[in-house]
């Protein structure tokens, strides 16, 4: 089955008013009259589904019944839930295990090693910054347009090819008031990266997630901020998985949005 046929089947189920329906029109335009008429019939069917399915009468007392639930859900006491016999058993186990755990902790060999603080090498930071700024300035088209983080994350997951990154695409929550515009997958030097575009007022920010391994970037390095072509680029390691993040920002304030 062709990829375009699959895409058409996906588009034909979109909600009326969805912006991606315009793409559907352009795909139907070159079709013969009869074939086009059949697809339009399916689209009409879709519209009827969206319109008819929500038409269900809601019981007038439903909300009142639901609001009573917390009153009826009195949580039993822990002792009552677990039962006195089992509670005594847990207490006995604790009494036996606590001294053993204490003894083990006391005698554990202590390490004098301090956590190693890793600085990202200047040449690596510059390379990442240049790649990120170059891509940011190219204003790449978004594969998915939405301000819903979950929706964008799911769509990016679908956009990624098996060899793009050895970990899932993540759309992190910003700590400052940035609006998500959408995202996509792009080239990032010799690699592929997932990018998301964010905005605050007239300012635009691009966040890249990529595998730092091909650039010999070690996980756990310290957050690094570098300047490139008038932009600030913040680079930091992933905490959920060994990916690397880079954020291109035209102002220093934007750099605090993620890390």
């Amino acid at each position, binding site marked *: 089955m062709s990829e375009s046929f699959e895409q058409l089947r996906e588009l034909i*189920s979109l909600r009326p008013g969805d912006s991606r329906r315009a793409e559907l029109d352009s795909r139907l335009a070159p079709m013969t009259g009869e074939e086009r008429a059949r697809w339009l*019939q399916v689209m009409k069917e879709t519209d009827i589904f969206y319109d008819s399915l929500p038409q269900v009468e809601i019981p007038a007392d*439903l909300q009142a019944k639901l609001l009573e639930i*917390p009153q009826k859900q009195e949580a039993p006491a822990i002792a009552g839930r677990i039962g006195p016999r089992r509670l005594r058993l847990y207490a006995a186990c604790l009494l036996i295990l606590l001294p053993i755990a204490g003894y083990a902790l006391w005698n554990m060999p202590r390490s004098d090693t301090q956590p190693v603080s890793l600085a990202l090498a200047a040449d690596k930071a510059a390379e990442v910054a240049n790649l990120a700024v170059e891509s940011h300035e190219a204003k790449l088209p978004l594969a998915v347009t939405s301000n819903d983080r979950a929706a964008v994350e799911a769509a990016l997951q679908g956009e990624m090819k098996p060899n793009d990154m050895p970990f899932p695409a993540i759309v992190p929550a910003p700590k400052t008031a940035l609006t998500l515009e959408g995202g996509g997958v792009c080239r990032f030097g010799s690699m592929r990266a997932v990018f998301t575009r964010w905005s605050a007022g007239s300012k635009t920010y691009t966040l890249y997630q990529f595998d730092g391994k091909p650039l010999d970037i070690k996980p756990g390095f310290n957050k690094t901020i570098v300047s490139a072509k008038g932009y600030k680029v913040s680079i930091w390691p992933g905490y959920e998985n060994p990916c690397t993040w880079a954020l291109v920002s035209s102002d220093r304030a934007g750099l605090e949005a993620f890390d």
Partner: protein
Amino acid sequence: MDQSDPRYVQYQEWVRAYSGELYRFAYRLSGRRESAEDLVQETFVEAWRSLEKNKQPEYPRAWFFQILRFRYAHLIRDTGHHLRTTHSAEILDLQSSPTGEAPLEALANQEILQKALDTLAPRIRETFLMVFLEGNTCRETADVLKVPLGTVLSRLDRARQLLRAALAKTMGPPSASHPTARVAAVPEEPFNE
């Protein structure tokens, strides 16, 4: 229950925000008003228990629908697979429905639509409703159900075919040349959660 308890305030907001659409979904899924009400109540009981443990979902709407679908999976597991699948006798009832509508417009007839929905296998009906009632895209649905996009598209095609067939029994022969009829019919799948 202290009415000013922030957990109860949150709970009230959820009831006002989601009870209506959850009921609609439950009714379309189960086809029975009593079952729909039970499912929605069980969903909110579970939501309240989570609140009591100070657990709050990041995306409450998606979370509520997930609980509801999970409760429904339990319901049909406990009551048998074919609780909701319409028997041929019911389809024959459709044949005698004296409506003069064309098949497509007949979908707007609520009774006919629900009876046609009843002919779908639970897994297909669930997928169909996740897209056309819950409002997920096909990709989001595939992600939630942890199945490939192609599986979701096949289930939607199958749903359309079965709905057309159910309506055709009422109105006349189905259109064999429908574009989505190019897709091979998917077999009915068990609904074990």
